[in-house]
């Protein structure tokens, strides 16, 4: 069970991470916005997943 404030921070962080990475990859990576978005969502999802799993293990 992940405590609520921690879960909230993880979700907010991942939610900020996705568009940020999209913008970064689109501009720097010279890939299309759709590809960047897909990669960003994948990475954000992984970060969220690892965070939740780690939190569950810690608590």
């Amino acid at each position, binding site marked *: 069970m992940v405590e609520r404030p921690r879960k909230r921070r993880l979700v907010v962080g991942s939610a900020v991470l996705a*568009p*940020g990475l999209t*913008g970064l990859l689109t501009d720097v990576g010279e890939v299309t916005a759709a590809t960047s978005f897909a990669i960003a969502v994948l990475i954000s999802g992984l970060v969220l997943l690892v965070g939740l799993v780690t939190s569950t293990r810690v608590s």
Partner: protein
Amino acid sequence: MNRLIPPSTPILDTDVMPDEPLTEPTATDEPSIAGPTAPPPPIKRLRRRSDAPVGGVASGLADYLGIDPVIVRILIVVLAVGGGSGFLLYLAAWILVPDDHDTDPRPVAFNSSLTAIIFGAIVLVAASSAVFGTVNLNFNESVIIPLLLIGAGFYLLNQRAVTGQDEPTATAWSPTPAAAPPPPSGPDSNDLVHWATPIVAEPPAPADPKPPVTSVTLAVAATVVGILLVLGQLTSLTVGAGAVFGAIATVCGLGLVASAFVGRARPLVAVAVVALVGLSLAPLADATIAGGLGPREYRPDNQAELLPTYDVGAGYIELDLRNVDFVDDASLELDVGAGYAEVIAPTDVNLEIESRSRFGMVTILGDEQSGVDVDLVRSDQLREGAPTLRIIADVTFGAIEVRRG
């Protein structure tokens, strides 16, 4: 009314007093009767692990965040493979983060004066290159601002030790004797020794040390943006407003994720919101920087005068192609940040038009669409063998119109 024991009279009988004199406890005395006096938790500091196989950055960071080093290693490898930033960050951390033998309280510090000299020399050479144009940079494209950002990032990280924010916020406490309990009710009490022993007030629980997530994240964001801008100037990497705001949002997002494990970072939410707003306006900013402001009117007389790209940041573009006698296929792009773009095409060429307006209206050869993220592709083939004019038009906020004259 007579009192059995006057208040001014010492009630302790010397016959039952211990040998040691009764003294005021000092700050160094161990309280003999006290509440739990657990030492404050050790301050977490970012340190490289000296027993790690490579630089100890990953294991040190994992120690600091309290997570498995494997996660950090995977993240570094992913970042290193995907563009090389992981490699650069690892190298920077290897140079700048002290190892676990270092007693310097700063989270980031130069390990030796030699490192500081090398780093300073690199900064000076880069700045000199920018100033004297040895790498063909003008002031606006210089690396001075990015380097200042990098410097600000390191300054913020180092400054923490000076301001003491990295220290735990436990309230200073010295044991003071508590109010004496009421004396025993009678002179024949055999508990006087206990009563004579100084009782010390329970110390306040030390506040949890709060890792500097916000300031470290902001410092890292400034540093990353600076590095990106330097790379944008010195390499072929495209670094626009989108990359800058995207990097800030990315670092803030990672900082917020880290705050789930190592303390609170509420100000980062506001920074992230600003970065995301900036990110959404980045195309407008890029177009403004590239295209400038004001109305633009172009009336080329022949195909050779055609520009590959027509830009305006905010304003109006009118591209009148009626005087051009096309002999070959041609292609041109229009990029408008905020405003209106109008293209008047000749009547004797085939047209292939791709247009996009993020917020606004698109009118292509009489076909009109409006809304958010409007994409309109039209092809108008007049006759076989005629030259084809290909137009790619992009407006962030505003309208596009392409028609035949």
